[in-house]
């Protein structure tokens, strides 16, 4: 029942928020997201004692054998927590901003939260597909309506990319559905089914393309930098912090257990694409002078590493990926928050026009340094443990891939430190001299993020234990060699 509540609270409050006017909308959405967070924490406590109690099954479309089947495993719980933590933080950061038609804005935000939690909890393939699209539609409207001047065509490109991918996945789901003996969409039926290696080989691509577009993995990434740049920042936080995890999540929850042989056959191809993406995106990030695009490309590089580690598919790499999903979400949301503050104060995002913020806004500068270093995965920050595990997993699979991918660490240091130098150090100009430091809600949200960065950097054990069950499960599924 708790799991259903996690979906229902944002769904219902989201619909109510549509009718609210003025400041009522943001208060409502903040309260709603806090309520979701409380439920998520209660679910987490229950998960440690009795995870089975979080399962909820109800008949949905009996003619098809599809059920409303939701539940939580370690990875699902972790991502639900990430979603539940992120939304209140996002709402706090933008609490002082005024959006045109606030009812619609916050309503759509909450609907996308419902869709995201639905994706992370669905144990029925058709339900998974429905939530997968439900999460996309509100984001489409959010980006187009409140985004930058090029937002409409850019967001439409994003929509068409993901819609095409998910339709291919739908064909895959329908095909597997007809192969199951009792014609069922349930995760159990899908994973216990034995498909021939020929079938798995082409089914792999139907699923992989859908997930790769969402992550995004090279060469399916072209929608991403434009969309991140043009979206309003709260939406970019949702997109980059949580939504890209849908792709990674999809691979771990559905692709690897359902098509183990297919994944094995195309393992190397997938890793090569991911590694190309890492290097390519890192190099472009170095050349960027636009703050938002820099972070967008840095995100492609990080996601590429996670994708490579998933397909390396051993215990360490999978543990690393899941830990990193959480930490990357936290870090990138922190980065966007700071960019949002800079853009709000100075109205520019070109790094060449910035400089010397450290002297005028010391709190902002310190926070930017902390979050940036976490993004480079410096030891004692939360990014370190995940990247370490992923690299050692990738090394076990093939040292050469690990070596090439490790270049990403160096390149990440280059572009992040370069960014820091241009933005907060150096000579201040007339514009940056007037920078106002972090205030109330912003300070609170970013301080909380910094706290998470340090706590999980020093003591990642709860996170590792949470996701261990999923790792063991994926490793146990037939990995025929």
């Amino acid at each position, binding site marked *: 029942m708790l799991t259903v509540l996690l979906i229902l609270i944002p769904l219902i409050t989201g619909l109510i928020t549509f009718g609210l006017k003025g400041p009522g909308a943001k208060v409502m959405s903040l309260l709603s997201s806090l309520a979701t967070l409380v439920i998520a924490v209660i679910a987490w406590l229950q998960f440690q004692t009795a995870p089975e109690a979080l399962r909820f099954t109800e008949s*949905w*479309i*009996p*003619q098809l054998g599809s059920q409303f089947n939701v539940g939580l495993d370690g990875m699902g719980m972790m991502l639900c927590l990430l979603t539940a933590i992120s939304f209140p933080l996002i709402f706090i950061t933008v609490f002082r901003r005024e959006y045109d038609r606030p009812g619609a804005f916050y309503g759509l935000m909450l609907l996308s939260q419902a869709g995201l939690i639905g994706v992370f909890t669905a144990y029925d393939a058709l339900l998974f*597909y*429905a939530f*997968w*699209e*439900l999460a996309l*539609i509100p984001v489409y*409207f959010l980006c*187009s*309506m409140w985004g930058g001047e090029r*937002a*409409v065509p850019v967001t*439409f490109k994003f*929509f*068409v990319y993901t*819609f*095409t991918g998910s*339709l*291919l996945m*739908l*064909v895959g789901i*329908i*095909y597997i*559905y*007809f192969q199951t003996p009792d014609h069922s969409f349930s995760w159990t039926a899908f994973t216990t089914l034995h498909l021939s290696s020929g079938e798995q080989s082409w089914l792999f691509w139907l699923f992989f393309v859908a997930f790769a577009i969402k992550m995004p993995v090279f060469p399916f990434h072209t929608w991403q930098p434009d969309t991140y740049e043009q979206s309003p920042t709260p939406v970019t936080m949702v997109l980059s912090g949580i939504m890209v995890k849908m792709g990674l999540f999809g691979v771990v929850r559905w692709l690897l257990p359902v098509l183990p042989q297919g994944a094995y056959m195309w393992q190397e191809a997938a890793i090569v694409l991911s590694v190309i993406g890492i290097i390519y995106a890192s190099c472009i990030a170095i050349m960027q002078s636009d703050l938002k695009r820099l972070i967008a490309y840095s995100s492609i590089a990080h996601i590429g590493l996670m994708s490579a580690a998933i397909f390396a598919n051993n215990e360490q790499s999978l543990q690393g990926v899941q830990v990193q999903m959480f930490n990357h979400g936290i870090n990138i949301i922190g980065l966007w928050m700071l960019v949002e503050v800079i853009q709000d104060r100075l109205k520019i995002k070109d790094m060449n026009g910035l400089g010397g913020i450290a002297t005028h806004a010391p709190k902002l500068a310190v926070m930017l340094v902390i979050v940036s270093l976490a993004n480079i995965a410096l030891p004692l920050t939360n990014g370190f443990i995940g990247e370490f595990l992923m690299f050692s997993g990738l090394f076990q699979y093939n040292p050469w891939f690990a070596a090439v991918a490790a270049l990403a660490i160096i390149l990440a240091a280059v572009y992040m430190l370069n960014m820091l130098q241009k933005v907060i150090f150096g000579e201040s100009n007339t514009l940056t001299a007037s920078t106002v430091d972090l205030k109330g809600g912003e300070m609170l949200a970013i301080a909380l993020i910094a706290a998470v960065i340090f706590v999980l950097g020093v003591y990642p054990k709860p996170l590792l234990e949470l996701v261990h069950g999923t790792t063991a499960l994926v490793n146990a599924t037939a990995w025929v060699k």
Partner: protein
Amino acid sequence: MNALITTAVFGIVLMFVGLFVKNRQHIKYYAIAGTIIAFIANWYDAQLAGGGTVVLHGMIEVSRFSVLFNAVAIASTFLYFVLCGSSFEKVGNDVADYFALIFFILSGITLTASFSNLLMLFLAIEILSIPQYILAGADKKNLKSNEASLKYFLMGSFTTGILLMGIALIYGATGSFSLREMSLGTGDISPLALCGIILTGFALAFKVSAAPFHFWTPDVYDGSPTVFTAFMATVVKAAGFIAFMRLFHVSFAGGNLSQHWQLIIALITASTLLIGNFTAVFQQSVKRMLAYSSIAQAGFMLFAIVALNETAAQGIILYAVAYSVATIGIFAILLKLKDYTFDGYNGLARREPLLALVNTIFLLSLAGIPLTAGFFAKYFVLSAAVQQGNLLWLVILAVLCAAISAYYYFRVIIAMYFKSGEAETTEPITTGFKSALVIGAAVIILLGVFPNLVLQFL
């Protein structure tokens, strides 16, 4: 049976209503009452048939499937009258006659779902075609309307000839007109019968505007008065598919007979999908875009004919509901606008937020986004084809086309929400109109979450 009788009777009644009712605005209430009575009468057929099938003199059979489809068609017509009924009087003076003609079309539609004899099929197709030729030309002083009518009539009667030829050849080969009794054999087939099957297939493909027999569609749909296009492109088209599917599944699919024609229909499906979707992308007028979209949607409905199984029957019913309700709604909103191009929608969300929201739901349903009825409609027809096994190439092609279709449906959404302008309406939007639209949208969403609300009757 009841549905056939009541709709035919109401056709005649409406003609007399035109003589006696002086206020032309009141005529539509008689028509709405007519659909309600026809709906109830049709429901009594379900009691009559129970779970099984009642055959009348080897001509008509009343089954759960036919009753369900009649119910869908009559309910869609009801929605159509409520939403568009007041636009009839703008076309011309003979308002009552237009309603009467639509009731005659409806009686043809009820026959398409229940014929069990090739002669009845021919009658059904003719009864629903001839009033359409008249409606297409209802705007007598408009050249385009005249052109549409003439074009439709000439092409339509030509295909009627082809249909008759096909029926004659089949009769020659089997010696029977009856759907269930004609024996085309199970393995080898005589060339005579095969020609008959292919000719009837082509004729029906023309009626449902499948490529390459679709050339009449854009001109006729564009030229006809918009209010009648809304009906021709939705309920009537769905009826054509029901006739197509019944004929091919009942009579032409015994044993491995289907292998003789399956590839041809599959190729027709593929070309319909490609031509419909690609051409719709380039349209500037929403009315013409909807004409091509109706061809594209026909491509999806053809899946139900290619795939020979239970899922296909469920899919076509669901598709009929989802497609008819959504398209009628979009046309009803289009009718209220001054400018039929995409720019005519600019800024509608600011002026009429409810209209824009409802229109968005309809468009999303046509694009096949989950949690709308359109998704499950597409889902069922596609999964029918996947179940068939050897049609996977067609399914992949179809989903790629579905992604293309998102482009032109979203153009309307983009115009409504993200472009600034003064979407001008020809008349003030009444509360009654809005509430009817909201009911239509609610049906779309409800069926998108619980498709078994309809399927349980099958």
